[in-house]
């Protein structure tokens, strides 16, 4: 970027509200033709329409400045690009046309917008990349001239949008237009710099980009939108910065595949995202806070994969489910939603859903969690709607109603189970190898973590407190590592419609009293629970017919809200019992374990939100007599724990 500094001479040619700045060093020979036309740097002016002065104004090459003031606007264009930019101004409605001749030789043009107007807009067209600087701009479009958007960039190339550091900018579109966004960019949008952009979307989305959306450093506040807060195509990528979204009548952030004719299922991720049209979301840093209140709204949604490697995401939904008359099924709100896979390897996620049927996070593909800190809370009940009748807290039996008619609240859900006649097909699934995951569901039928296919836990710490099954898989469920606390107050702690394999890790599972169990496999369909390794505490019996390769032991009673210590070799796991649960306590370890009740824990590594300690040092307590446990056909459910016990932490 070349700036001709003050002190040098500049010829200013003014035509209406447009001023062109020609530095003396660049102007060269300015030719008159027939006393009518003056041509400067290939820009022709009708002499009768212009006035000219010379002063020391500094000129930055490739720059265009638009200053709004009330109901008027002025445009200033650097001389070296004067021939390439045409400006039409109608009050404070500005239409800039960037010539198709702009290329790599001419270079990128930067448009700097400032000032304030209660009835203005910027419409810019072109076919070469450009930068839009928001330099303390407050722009409200009241009576659209070129577009209903506050800023409409009809340029399919890469557009950088820079809220200038230290400035606050506010865009509000017209209420009576047909625009797709208050800020609409046809091409790629790259947000940068450390300024703030506030957006109100009165017709559709707050920000709409036809192609990819990236953000670094900038702060974007969507305070109101009739559609989504941010809606983009191709992919969404956030490295840093802040996005706050509220007041939307649809999703917070939505990313779709742009060209579904060419890429029906997307391109997938490409090297350096070159020509990528994946519908993916990538978040590696920054903070996103989304509060959605609309029915069935998603905090962050994508048509492809969602990849989170860092940053902080707070997504809250309060809307109930709804009947989708196009798909003829119920839809429910969700904090994070991906049609493809979801990969989480870092970051802090806090997801809350309070509406009926609301979920914390879900994907149709494989959910892989290898790191990060995830907290999910749902409190809504079961949503029912058959297209004519709605019930936002349905408590009836769902076993015999069409699954399209209801949405269950769930903390985390992944995969798809498809029914075709009497056959089922399964896809997607869940693999957890790291991170800390805390899930709480309190509404009727709310499951904690559910895979519609297989579920594998290799590592990480998982804490689930749920109304319905705490951890559930439609196919096999395998635990070979990690620390798992799974407590269901009204169903099984761990449940699979396939086999359940306990091969390693630390598992503390609590099933409800009555007919439910701590760990359930689908024995009705010749599936089994296999206990082959790991350290296990199961409150409530195990599924009947379990294969216990690693010996298990049990006691038929336990004291609620009491600290116990399970010793396996030199390892001591101290745990606090719940206030309710099945009557039998089953324990297992690599070596024959011993159990004490009523201990006092003096040290150790706190896990499971404080109800467990590994490497614990305990004192006191009473040794519990353990019996060999051979399967779930002993001890039975019902009864619940006995009274409170001594000690505690």
């Amino acid at each position, binding site marked *: 970027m*070349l*700036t001709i*500094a003050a002190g*040098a001479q500049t*010829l200013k040619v003014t035509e209406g509200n447009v001023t062109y700045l020609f530095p*003396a060093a660049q102007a060269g020979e300015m030719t008159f033709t027939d006393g009518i036309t003056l041509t400067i740097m290939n820009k022709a002016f009708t002499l009768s329409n212009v*006035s*000219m002065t*010379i002063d020391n104004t500094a000129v930055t090459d490739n720059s265009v400045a638009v200053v709004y003031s009330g109901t008027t606007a002025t445009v200033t264009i650097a001389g070296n690009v004067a021939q390439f930019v045409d400006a039409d101004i109608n009050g404070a409605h500005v239409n800039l046309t960037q010539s198709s001749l702009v290329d790599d030789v001419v270079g990128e043009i930067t448009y700097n917008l400032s000032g304030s107007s209660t009835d203005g807009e910027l419409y810019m067209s072109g076919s070469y990349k450009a930068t839009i600087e928001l330099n303390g701009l407050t722009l409200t479009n009241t009576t659209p001239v070129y577009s209903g958007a506050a800023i409409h960039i009809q340029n399919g190339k890469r557009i950088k949008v820079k809220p200038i550091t230290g400035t606050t900018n506010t865009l509000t579109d017209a209420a009576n237009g047909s625009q797709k966004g208050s800020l609409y960019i046809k091409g790629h949008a790259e947000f940068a710099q450390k300024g703030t952009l506030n957006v109100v979307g009165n017709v559709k989305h707050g920000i709409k980009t036809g192609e990819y959306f990236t953000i670094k450093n900038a702060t974007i506040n969507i305070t109101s939108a009739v559609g989504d807060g941010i809606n983009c195509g191709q992919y969404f990528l956030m490295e840093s910065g802040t996005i706050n979204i509220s007041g939307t009548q649809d999703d917070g952030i939505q990313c779709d595949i742009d060209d579904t004719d060419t890429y029906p299922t997307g391109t997938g991720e490409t090297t350096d995202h070159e020509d990528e049209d994946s519908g993916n979301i990538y978040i590696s840093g920054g903070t996103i806070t989304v509060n959605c209140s609309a029915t069935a709204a998603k905090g962050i949604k994508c048509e492809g994969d969602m990849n989170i490697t860092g940053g902080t995401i707070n997504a809250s939904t309060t809307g109930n489910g709804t009947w989708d008359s196009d798909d003829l099924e119920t839809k429910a709100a969700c904090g994070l939603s991906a049609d493809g896979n979801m990969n989480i390897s870092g970051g802090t996620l806090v997801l809350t859903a309070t509406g009926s049927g609301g979920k914390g996070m879900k994907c149709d593909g494989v959910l892989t969690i290898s790191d990060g800190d995830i907290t999910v809370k749902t409190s809504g009940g079961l949503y029912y709607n058959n297209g004519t009748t709605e019930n936002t807290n349905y408590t009836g039996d769902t076993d015999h109603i069409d699954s399209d008619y209801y949405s269950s609240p769930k903390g985390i859900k992944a995969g798809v189970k498809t029914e075709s006649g009497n056959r089922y097909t399964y896809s997607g699934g869940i693999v957890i190898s790291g991170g800390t995951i805390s899930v709480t569901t309190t509404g009727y039928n709310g499951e904690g973590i559910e895979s519609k296919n297989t579920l594998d836990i290799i590592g990480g710490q998982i804490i689930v407190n749920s109304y319905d099954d705490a951890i559930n898989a439609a196919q096999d469920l395998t635990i070979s590592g990690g620390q798992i606390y799974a407590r269901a107050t009204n169903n099984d702690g761990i449940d699979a419609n396939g086999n359940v394999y306990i091969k390693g890790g630390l598992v503390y599972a609590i099933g409800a009293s009555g007919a439910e169990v701590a760990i359930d496999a689908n024995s009705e369909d010749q599936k089994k629970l296999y206990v082959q390794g790991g350290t296990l505490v199961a409150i409530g019996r195990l599924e009947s017919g379990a294969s216990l390769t690693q010996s298990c032991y049990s006691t038929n009673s336990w004291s609620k809200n009491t600290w116990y210590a399970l010793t396996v070799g030199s390892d001591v796991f101290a745990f606090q019992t719940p206030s309710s649960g099945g009557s039998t306590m089953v324990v297992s370890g690599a070596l024959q374990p011993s159990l004490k009740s009523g201990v006092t824990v003096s040290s150790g590594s706190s896990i499971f939100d404080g109800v467990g300690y590994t490497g614990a040092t305990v004192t006191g307590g009473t040794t519990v007599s353990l019996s060999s446990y051979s399967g779930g056909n002993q001890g039975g459910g019902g009864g619940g724990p006995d009274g409170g016990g001594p000690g505690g932490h």
Partner: protein
Amino acid sequence: MKKILLLLTLMVGTLTAQADNYTYLTFETTDGAKASVAVENLTLTISGTTLTAGSQQFTLSNLSKMYFSTADETTTGIEEVTAATLDEATDIYDLQGHKISKEQMRKGVYIVKTKNRTYKMVVR
């Protein structure tokens, strides 16, 4: 290394030029005569067929070009103008571009064309 490269890129990418000191705007008429005007806070106004630059006035149709210059390029040759030169004049113009005769010359600046060249003449 990345930061160093970025710094170098910025240093190369942002250039501030202090251009030559263009203190004159020089006008050239269709006959090749030049008149330079100091540009300090110069305003150029156009009224009808006349362009006024400071104290100078030009008929638009007689102007061929203008450009910034670092020196006064007003057509020289005053020292060479003699009575004989004036006798050789084929055309004489005032700075408004009006063709005049020798007898009409009063105090002021004129453009005198001979067969061989053009002079600027100051009558005092």
